[in-house]
């Protein structure tokens, strides 16, 4: 599976729902193959940002640019969006069916993604017959099957137990580094954000803006989860979220720009 990431440039993004301004002058800038974790309180607009990037939600002002523009982003929603009436195989195959790919190409691709995601032997199962981790793998597999340029993940592991979260986080990190795709994830989990994001953007304020940014140069390996740098970053992000209550401050090590 060979993929290549796109660069993502968001500038001056603003979005309101009714009379309430949710996002104001949001800037994001990612080079191809980078990963960004958005972390913030519930309702701060993380999902809205991802939906705008996926082209699923209109915005009021600003610019969203993916380069090259013909590449497609794949979005995995918080509820995973698996169709209960489709089996694992059919859910995985669906993006290829919609793209008009022939049966032979679809079979080859689905088998490859099943092997990558550890989903062999589950072809005929329906989503309700899967564990939380297996569902998550199917949703990720379905997002990756079209060779996306950008992978957008909304609270990817929120419904999972701690052990499954960690194992899937490691799996995702190895997929991301192997595939070289650009990844943006929104999460409540500070540990998840710090582990998976090369850049961690803390969102806060009303309307939402980036209140602090942290860079994570650490490797995405199991050993990093106990590394001093990892624990230190977790502490800093937690402090940024807790102390400011999401309010922008000038004391953070980076300005509010990603």
């Amino acid at each position, binding site marked *: 599976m060979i993929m290549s990431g796109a660069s993502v440039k968001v500038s001056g993004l603003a979005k309101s729902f009714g009379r309430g301004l949710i996002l104001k002058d949001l800037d994001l800038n990612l080079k191809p193959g980078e990963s960004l974790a958005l972390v913030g309180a519930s309702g701060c607009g993380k999902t809205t940002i991802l939906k705008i990037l996926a082209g*699923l939600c209109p915005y009021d002002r600003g610019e969203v640019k993916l380069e090259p523009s013909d590449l497609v982003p794949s979005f995995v*929603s918080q509820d995973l*969006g698996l*169709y209960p*009436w489709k089996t694992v195989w059919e859910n995985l195959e669906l*993006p290829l069916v919609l793209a008009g790919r022939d049966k032979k190409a679809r079979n080859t691709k689905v088998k490859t993604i099943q092997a990558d995601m550890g989903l062999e032997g589950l072809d005929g199962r*329906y989503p309700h017959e899967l564990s939380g981790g297996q569902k998550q793998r199917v949703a990720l597999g379905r997002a990756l099957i*079209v060779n996306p340029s950008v992978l957008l993940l909304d609270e990817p592991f929120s419904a999972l137990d701690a052990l499954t979260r960690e194992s899937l986080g490691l799996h995702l990190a190895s997929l991301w580094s192997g595939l070289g795709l650009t990844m943006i994830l929104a999460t409540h989990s500070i540990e998840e954000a710090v582990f998976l994001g090369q850049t961690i953007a803390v969102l806060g304020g009303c309307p939402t803006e980036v209140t602090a940014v942290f860079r994570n140069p650490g490797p995405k390996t199991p050993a990093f989860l106990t590394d001093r740098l990892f624990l230190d970053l977790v502490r800093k992000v937690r402090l940024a979220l807790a102390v400011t209550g999401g309010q922008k401050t000038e004391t953070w090590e980076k300005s509010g720009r990603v």
Partner: protein
Amino acid sequence: MAGFRGIISVLSALGLWHLMSVLLGGQILPSPLSVGRDFILCLSQPYFYGHFLTSARRAAAGVAVGLLLATPLGWLMGSFKKLDLYLSPLLFMTYPVPKILFLPVLLVMLGLGEAPKVVLVAVTVGYQVLVVTRDSIINLEPGYVETFNGLWPGRRRKLRKGLALVRHVFWPASLPSAATALRLASGTAVSVLFMAESFATERGLGFFIVEAWGNLDLNRMFSGILAMGLLGGAFYVLANMAERKLCPWVSRKN
């Protein structure tokens, strides 16, 4: 165990019937044994088969027409809000009206042939399927459509996208509700068919029952009622089988 409980349930109903027959007298309510004997006798007569097959054909045609028209209309009303705004007031104004009231109108408009009976069954089934299908699309989790939009490649080809949305989301999402509506409607369909066949015709189980009633042949009348019940039951079983075949994710969940 389930089969044993079923046998107990049927035997209890027959016992109650027999008890009522003894209490009321065989002239008013024949015993299940005498009705059973007569029913078996009827089964060997081509005359009875003819009536049974006529009713079965009318009911099947009505159910098929009702289903084929109501299901896509339900999808359209559920999918297009503007269309729904125009059609739903009409739907909900006419929904509570007993469909049997349309029979005289249909007889005047379509004559005394097969058409008014088939249309009456189709209208009865169609209303129930239409309401349920429309509601199942309106109440569809918004995430399903959003996921589909995310999976659809590109922004163009709106017609192809719409058809694919029906095929991969609306159709399977509405199937379990439509199957439930069909099960419920199967009983109602047979009831209205009885009314439609009770006059202005000489074919069908409705006519058979009314004729036997007129001749005070209660055993034959009850044989006809039993046959009509079996017809409704057959539709119920067929709807169940269709649901199991078309919605395996539901039957495996249950």
